[in-house]
């Protein structure tokens, strides 16, 4: 096993960013082990991020593979101007946008006629009791009702751990725009997630905020 990959496994104190930076440096030298670790770390969250936007499992796989292929080939060009995660997520976002432009929105988003076995939501399996399964249903439904920009903002923050500034960089917009999208996404989500929102109405909270 490569030293970079092994070191990140052994050192608990090392942050994810430092670990991934070491992996990228190792990948730049052609280290397949480091790449495999990075791949396995990013495939699940990228899958969850892409589910609603890509609409189809095969397209999710395409975007992920294109993204991580670009990481494999472009690791040598990574200069550390941003966190490794932000760099990788930016590649994924641009790859997704390219796919969305290449195909008609109708066939990409909000696909309703796919078979149940092929439904994107089934890409995620939650090994929990009925409560978690219900939350998953509500979340999937609520997220699918959000406008693309609001849903992606929320997903970049919650699925991929990006900060407000990093999301602005990834989506190529102002920080204020990110804050506004996040605000509206939270309000809309509360409207569609009564099981999660509890008794208090979201409008009241939004008005107070």
């Amino acid at each position, binding site marked *: 096993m490569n030293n970079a990959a092994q070191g990140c496994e052994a050192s608990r104190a090392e942050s994810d960013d430092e670990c991934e930076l070491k992996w990228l440096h190792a990948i*730049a030298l052609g280290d397949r082990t480091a790449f495999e670790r990075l791949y396995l770390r990013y*495939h*699940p969250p990228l899958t*969850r991020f892409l589910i609603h936007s890509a609409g189809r499992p095969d397209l999710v796989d395409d975007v992920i593979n294109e993204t991580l292929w670009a990481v494999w080939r472009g690791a040598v060009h990574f200069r550390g101007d941003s966190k490794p995660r932000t760099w990788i997520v930016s590649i994924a976002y641009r790859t997704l946008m390219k796919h969305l432009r290449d195909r008609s929105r109708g066939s990409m988003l909000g696909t309703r006629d796919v078979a149940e076995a092929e439904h994107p939501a089934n890409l995620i*399996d939650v090994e929990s009791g009925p409560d978690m399964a219900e939350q998953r249903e509500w979340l999937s439904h609520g997220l699918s009702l959000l406008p693309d920009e609001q849903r992606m903002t929320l997903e970049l923050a*919650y699925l991929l751990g990006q*900060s407000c500034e*990093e999301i602005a960089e990834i989506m190529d917009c102002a920080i204020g725009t990110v804050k506004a999208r996040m605000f509206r996404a939270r309000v809309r989500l509360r409207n569609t997630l009564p099981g999660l929102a509890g008794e208090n109405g979201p409008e009241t909270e939004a008005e107070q905020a």
Partner: protein
Amino acid sequence: MNPTDSIHRQTWDLIPWIVNHSATAEQRERASGHLMTCSDCQEELALQERIHAGMNASGTREDTRARNALQAMNRRIDEAVAQARAADVSAPSPSTDVTFAWAHRRRWLAGLAAVVVLQACGLIALGTLLLASRDSADPAARYVTLSSSTSPAPAASIRLVPSPALRLGDLQSLLDEAGLQIVGSSPGSTILALAPVSGATDADAARSQQERRRRNLESIELLRKKPGILLVEPILGPAHSQ
């Protein structure tokens, strides 16, 4: 908006970034004081944490999918490595762009070198052809000027010194009469070397050495009788000296 409302709004806006751990320590500290006392923000924080947890809930199938996808990716990388090696790229890490860039650069340089070699070969071949054509016995292949003779000059057989007063036209008339031509001269053109004209030479080709010598003497005698000629004498070559 009073200060309390301002703090409430700031805290409410910070909640997603607190939930995903991207808020700074200063932001967390600022929000924590308000969260202690504001039930609305506490409720919102709890809701966003549940959403965050729900979105990130995962299972074993994800891992299986990721590993299957990784196998496909590894095959893709292996194919790229094989292609790079097939292209005679000897870089140690065929996976990176550096390698691909070097492979591309090496192929480009190899192509450039091939063009240079091809050009050199063409120049050599062209030079060889030029030299061969220059050395060719075919006079038609040579570069001919109007002043140059189309046939090799015959060997001079008479030496003539004309008078400086003799005009060029008169000299030419004398030579025509004697069947001679100028085939050489001294640097100052004071001494001319003469030979029978080509037609006469061809006609005499079958004649004997003695016949040619007789005609040469007749030409000398003719010229010696003409005014404007200071000296006329035979040139004795190896054949004449025998």
